[in-house]
């Protein structure tokens, strides 16, 4: 129980740290983004709207920093994320994010989890059959694929499957322009077609890391005495592989998954960019190009929350799987 409380505490603390960073970075950078903000919206928003935008953003220069900080935290928590000053000028940030979120969840979320699960299973089998054919091929191949830059694999994918006159798959966007969104079979098929290449990119690049760590964990676990005991007891190979070896080898892999999420996010941003896939990553990129500070900050906070939630879920699963974690203070 204490373990869970500690992890929850960590969650809150990290979130607070991220938000604080988010708050102070603009103030510490050289130049004045504040001025840039004013310049940018000068002719497009009334002074009143500008002031309310600034205060939502936490930039009210008439209040002292501490008050602004508290106000900013309150705003972030309650969903008052301000108005975009970038491409979609004046549109509430919340609305923009709401549009992009499902696409990212679908593409990045699904492929990441899939890469992790597939990677784990392949790693288990590769680690179990030491010295076999699979074990000879797997490490060198996946060491290389795990070091490939996400965006380069994306470009390669486009080159192979989506360019020229005989393109197999689309390389742009999430569904063909002009199609009406809905739950029709046609639309869904189109969405899937658009998601294959970006999804494959993420899958190929991300899976390598998890295969390798799982394999290494398996090999280390297989030399443990309790695995030999399993053999001595005459248990079937499958039972030993899953119940004794994999169950123990999986635990460090799970915490590794949580740690590596940040890196996967960065790759996902690049993939969305290359494929013009309108998810949160693409939105983040556009926000930087347009110096859309409100959108930028909200996105950063949201991505942080997503990663932290995933970490928390991993912590809960570890708690469930490992009796020693339950005993640890």
């Amino acid at each position, binding site marked *: 129980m204490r373990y869970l409380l500690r992890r929850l505490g*960590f969650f809150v*603390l*990290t979130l607070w*740290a*991220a938000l604080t*960073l*988010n708050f102070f*970075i*603009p103030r510490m*950078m*050289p*130049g004045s*983004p504040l001025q840039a903000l004013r310049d940018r919206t000068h002719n497009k928003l009334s002074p009143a709207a500008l002031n309310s935008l600034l205060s939502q953003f936490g930039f009210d220069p008439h209040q002292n920093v501490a008050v602004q900080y508290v106000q900013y935290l309150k705003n972030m928590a309650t969903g008052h994320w301000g108005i975009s000053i970038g491409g979609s000028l004046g549109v509430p940030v919340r609305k923009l994010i709401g549009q992009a979120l499902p696409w990212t969840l679908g593409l990045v979320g699904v492929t990441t989890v899939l890469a992790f699960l597939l990677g784990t299973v392949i790693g288990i089998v590769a680690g179990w059959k*030491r*010295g076999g054919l699979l074990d*000879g091929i797997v*490490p*060198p191949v996946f*060491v*290389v694929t795990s*070091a*490939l*830059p*996400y*965006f*380069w694999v994306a*470009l*390669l994918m486009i*080159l192979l499957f989506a*360019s*020229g006159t005989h393109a197999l798959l689309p390389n742009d966007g999430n569904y063909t322009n002009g199609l009406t969104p809905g739950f029709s079979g046609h639309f869904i098929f189109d969405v899937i077609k658009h998601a294959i290449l970006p999804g494959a990119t993420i899958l190929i690049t991300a899976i390598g890391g998890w295969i390798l760590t799982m394999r*290494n964990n398996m*090999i*280390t676990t297989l*030399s443990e005495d309790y695995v030999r005991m399993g053999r001595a007891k005459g248990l079937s190979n499958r039972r030993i592989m899953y119940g004794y070896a994999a169950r123990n080898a999986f635990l460090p892999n799970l915490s590794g998954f*949580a*740690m590596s*999420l*940040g*890196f996967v*996010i*960065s*790759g996902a*941003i*690049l993939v969305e*960019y*290359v494929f013009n896939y309108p998810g949160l990553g693409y939105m*983040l*990129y556009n926000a*930087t*190009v347009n110096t859309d500070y409100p959108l*930028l*900050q909200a*996105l*950063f906070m949201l*991505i*942080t929350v997503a*990663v*932290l939630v995933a*970490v928390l879920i991993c912590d809960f699963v570890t708690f469930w799987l490992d009796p020693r974690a339950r005993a640890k203070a």
Partner: protein
Amino acid sequence: MSAILANTAIVTGAPEPARRRAGGGLWTAVRTNRKAMAGLIIFLIFAAMAAVPRLFTSVKHPNDAAQYASLAHPGSQHWLGTTQLGQDIYAQLIYGTRQSLVIALIAGFFATVLSVLIGVSAAYLGGIGDEALSLLTNVFLVLPTFPLIIVLATYAGKGNLLVVIVVLVVTGWSYGANQLRAQTLSLRNRDFLESARVRGERRSYIIVAELLPTMTSLIVANFLGAALYAVLTAAGLQFLGLGDPSSLSWGTMLYWSQNDGALQSGYPVWAIAPGICVALLGASFALLNYAFDEISNPALRPVRRIRVKRTDS
């Protein structure tokens, strides 16, 4: 007596004299590990390209525009073709190695230094110092760093190499710090450290002269991991246009090729070639890193199956 012995016993041959290898076990281990050698060779090639580019190409200033015809396809005159602005792509690749390699090594080095400082200190301080440092490490570990880098780079203004390196160091040290802390904790109570303490050595001496040398392989592995992270992240940043687009590196080459729609307009080499270099350099670090894993943990080394003679009776 000797007659009886000769009938009942076996005379063994002379044992071979013991030979000691010069140069220590580490070099031998690297030499015999195929992955390590592959990674090392690739890295050395790139190092050569960065140090003496003149060895590889005759072009002196690859970034100057309009030297050659624009958008030429790969051929005998330009091995990899030319860019929109008439620059030789192959020459750019060679000269671009320098910045990419420099970023990787410098950012990797400083990130490792930070990891060692924070990780070892946390383990040695114990108590509240340890809790605080561990918390700091875990926070940085979990924060999604790429978005943070993007935000930082945007606010700091584009085009600053120093900012890129600082940001890479600040976001890249946390993973290593955790590993080093764990290792230090497990080594802390070992006898050789205990004997140094009892001898009355100062704590700083113990850490630097006794502890760190035993963790060398872990520190090197961390450095390789940090360098890999730096290569990929820097390339990603520059690709998005957040580096210095007027400087020459693989990442900026990718930016310009993407900007000018190379892939779509049928000039794939311009888009793919710099990426291959990034991938290769990254792969060399990854291979070396993986090989170091095998060297420090013998259980992971490739297993030789022994021929089992089954005698039936």
